[in-house]
């Protein structure tokens, strides 16, 4: 198979009619190019969405209280209730496989009134009472100082970690924030750290304007007692929060005397389910890309097959001569199939290379014109390229098979008579 004369012959045949060869090759080139670009675009979109989720622990759900919708054990329907720290302990004890159960409290909110004062500067910020675990569920990078730790919780220390956005509005440029005091709803807290969160979502500005203080200090300073505003619950990596959440609700319902069938009492948002739904979308998109790409490729391959049939027809007499001179029919068949595979693979590789170039250009423009939302780093993996090559090889084989068969079907005597 790897003999020099055969390759020479393949090249002679394919270069004999450049224009036709290039037109034929273009079909395959185009097919594989579309496949690669579609896959890369899908990947870019996927990367974009994934980075929207940021490095948030995706195996997470958020849970809050709503009014009960059913009367139960003498309690009326429509009753308001709040989570208590006891609920948090009960969940930790009764539901296994949970990584973090973080109770949270919150002050202020979007477009709230000014609640934080430092000297003559004021601002409206979200203030969260949190446990140290929260930094694993909603990651942020600490730009100076430290985050809340267990000692802060235990000692109910009045310390705060502020966002870079908060720093920008309460401090002068270059002013040291660590060690200074800010007044949150009249209570002084010492700033011990600053953070920055990554997001390319629309809320990048907003999420830098948050203040984190220890949960226990929050409860004491703002008279929350053992109330818990809401919870962020993350499951272990090997289990899914979507499967565990019913258990959690059951525990909460028991603790809060809520009717077991009352589905509306506890509100939640399942990030994991949402995340999986989006991932499922990308899976579907990938299939569509393969489907469309392979179909376009197929029309290219049919083109190759067609041309090979014409080549065989044109060379019928030559094939007759060669058989009269004693060439083995199998050798002729192999020759035709190899020509087809060679043409397919060369044009396919050109398509892959050009596709890579297009992807490079897109990345270049994305890099130079700033990021576009939801579209980051379109690319295809090595696996995809290898798969594309295998598809090419198989399709080249298929494209050559029928022409090769027709080449040796004609008897040499008839082939020789052809003019």
């Amino acid at each position, binding site marked *: 198979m790897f003999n*020099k*004369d055969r390759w020479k012959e393949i090249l*002679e*045949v394919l270069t*004999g009619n450049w224009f036709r060869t290039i037109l034929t090759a273009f079909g395959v080139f185009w097919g594989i190019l579309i496949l690669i670009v579609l896959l890369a675009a899908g990947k870019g979109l996927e990367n974009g969405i994934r980075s929207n989720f940021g490095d948030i622990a995706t195996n997470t759900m958020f849970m809050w209280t709503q009014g009960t919708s059913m009367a139960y054990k003498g309690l009326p329907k429509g009753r308001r209730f709040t989570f208590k720290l006891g609920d948090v302990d009960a969940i930790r004890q009764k539901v296994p496989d949970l990584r973090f159960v973080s109770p949270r409290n919150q002050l202020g909110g979007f477009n709230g009134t000014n609640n934080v004062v430092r000297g003559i500067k004021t601002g409206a910020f979200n203030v969260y009472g949190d446990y140290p675990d929260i930094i694993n569920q909603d990651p942020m990078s600490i730009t100076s100082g430290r985050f809340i730790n267990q000692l802060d919780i235990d000692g109910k220390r009045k310390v705060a970690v502020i966002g870079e956005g908060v720093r920008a509005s309460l401090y002068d440029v270059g002013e040291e924030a660590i060690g200074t005091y800010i007044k949150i709803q009249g209570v002084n807290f010492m700033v011990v750290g600053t953070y920055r969160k990554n997001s390319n979502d629309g809320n990048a500005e907003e999420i830098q304007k948050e203040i984190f203080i220890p949960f226990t200090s929050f409860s004491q300073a703002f008279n929350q007692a053992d109330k818990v505003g809401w919870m962020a619950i993350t499951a272990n990596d090997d289990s899914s929060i979507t499967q565990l959440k019913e258990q959690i609700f059951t525990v909460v319902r028991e603790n809060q005397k809520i009717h077991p069938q009352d589905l509306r009492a506890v509100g939640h948002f399942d990030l994991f389910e949402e995340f999986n739904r989006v991932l499922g979308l990308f899976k579907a998109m990938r299939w569509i890309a393969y489907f469309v790409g392979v179909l376009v490729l197929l029309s290219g391959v049919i083109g190759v097959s067609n041309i090979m049939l014409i080549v065989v027809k044109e060379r019928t*007499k*030559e094939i007759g*001569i*060669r*058989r*009269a*001179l*004693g*060439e*083995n*029919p*199998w*050798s002729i068949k192999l020759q035709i199939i190899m020509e087809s595979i060679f043409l397919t693979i060369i044009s396919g590789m050109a398509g892959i290379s050009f596709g890579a170039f297009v992807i490079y250009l897109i990345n270049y423009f994305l890099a130079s014109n700033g990021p576009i939302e939801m579209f980051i780093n379109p690319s295809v993996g090595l696996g995809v390229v290898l798969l594309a090559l295998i598809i090419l090889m198989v399709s080249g084989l298929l494209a050559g098979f029928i022409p090769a068969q027709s080449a*040796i079907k004609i*008897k*040499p*005597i008839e082939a*020789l008579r052809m003019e």
Partner: protein
Amino acid sequence: MIEIKDLHKSYKMGSNSLHVLKGINFSVEEGELVAIMGSSGSGKSTLLNILGMLDVLDEGSYTLDGVPIKDLNETKAAQYRNKFLGFVFQSFNLINYKSAMENVALPLYYQKVGRKERQEKALKYLEQVGLREWADHLPSELSGGQKQRVAIARAMAAEPKVLLADEPTGALDSTTSYEVMDLIQKINDAGNTILIVTHEPDIADMCKRIVHLKDGVIVEDKKITQVRASQYV
């Protein structure tokens, strides 16, 4: 060398059957130069094709150099053609994108002879037909006579038992024809067995034996005194 007994061949043309060869008995010794003559439709080309294993016989037997030729599949037939036979055609049938040397080397390639040896042998045979310096030329750059000489060199390259020539001078003018015949005679002088199909009496006279075919049977089979082509060249 060649032994044919009671050979029948007919072609089906729709519902009609055309009986082309009607019982040929024919044998050729080693070193003979035989002309097969006959008008068109007499079956001479069919006979040559059967001898060349390009076509199969219906009835009778064919033995070539002691090997019975029957029930050949295409692979086997290709092997036998390569080993036993050299073909020369009226229309030369050179492969037009290969140089003279590559054309000559082709049968050796099918014998899986190494590249170097192939080239040496091809050059040797081109030398014999006087075209050594044309080795790198494409067939389109050669004259008719030169093409036929390349074709003869190609037929000889595999050192076949029998050389089969189908109207080798049919497409050539008389001077070139004689040159080609001169070459064929020389090859024959070297001891090779050659069969020529022709309808030109002067070409036939240059052979050592003439077999006349008419309507599918041999009507005449005579040894003659050979006319040397060299005297016309």
